[in-house]
């Protein structure tokens, strides 16, 4: 028998550990510095665009709190647009988290899913799976907000 087949569970674990080290040796190293810099540039640029709109809404005599909502709406729209044009995934290939973290990234996940699952029908495909990627953000965002408000207002009386 070839000596690469493990003899038992323990042998497999041992080989797996050693192999893991071998794999780590050959794993291609991404240019971390460059990737971080690109993420910074992409993320910053997106927020920069957002800031332009934020300032615009402030100019239109909205209070800072009131200006937040339309700013986010615009960024969501831009994200959807860029996704539809097929450029948001290219942006992510360059900027990674810089494209994923802004709210436009959230909008991209919804639009991308909608576009893709349209093929399985509007109801069972697109309708059901639109939030397949973004779902966790909503679920845990709500859970966190709720919990912290509960603790702060009712348990701590603040």
């Amino acid at each position, binding site marked *: 028998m070839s000596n690469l087949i493990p003899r038992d569970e323990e042998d497999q674990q041992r080989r797996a550990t050693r192999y893991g080290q071998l794999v780590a040796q050959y794993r291609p190293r991404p240019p*971390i510095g460059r990737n971080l810099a690109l993420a910074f540039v992409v993320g910053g640029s997106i927020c920069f665009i957002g800031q332009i709109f934020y300032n615009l809404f402030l100019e239109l005599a909205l209070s800072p709190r009131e200006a937040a909502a339309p700013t986010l709406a615009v960024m969501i729209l831009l994200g*959807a*647009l860029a996704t539809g044009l097929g450029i948001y995934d290219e942006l992510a290939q360059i900027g990674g988290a810089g494209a994923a973290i802004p709210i436009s990234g959230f909008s991209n996940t919804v639009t*991308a899913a909608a*576009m893709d699952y349209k093929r399985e029908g509007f109801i069972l495909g697109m309708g059901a799976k639109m939030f397949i990627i973004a779902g966790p953000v909503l679920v845990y965002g709500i859970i*966190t*907000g709720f919990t912290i408000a509960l603790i702060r207002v009712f348990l701590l009386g603040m």
Partner: protein
Amino acid sequence: MLELTTWTPAQLLVSLTILGGILGGLGIYQPLVDFAGAGALIPVSGFGSAVATGAIVEAKRIGIIGLFTGPFEIVGLGVTAAVIFGFLMALVASPKE
């Protein structure tokens, strides 16, 4: 974080959202927004913070039900906008490789 850990992007986003929620709930996120404007609002942590502050404001105003209605000001905006724009885009565009 994506470079240094085995986190998937989804896990990163959820963590940032939770972080934003906690900071927002403690009132620490607002100064960041005052300082950085869109730079703090737009990342998903801004979303988390907005959900938390929404819940707090409403809870103080109308009691326990506020915990449930509060988050929905911002969640409502985000979800409705994403659904509407996403749907419209999907009608006219198809995935390209």
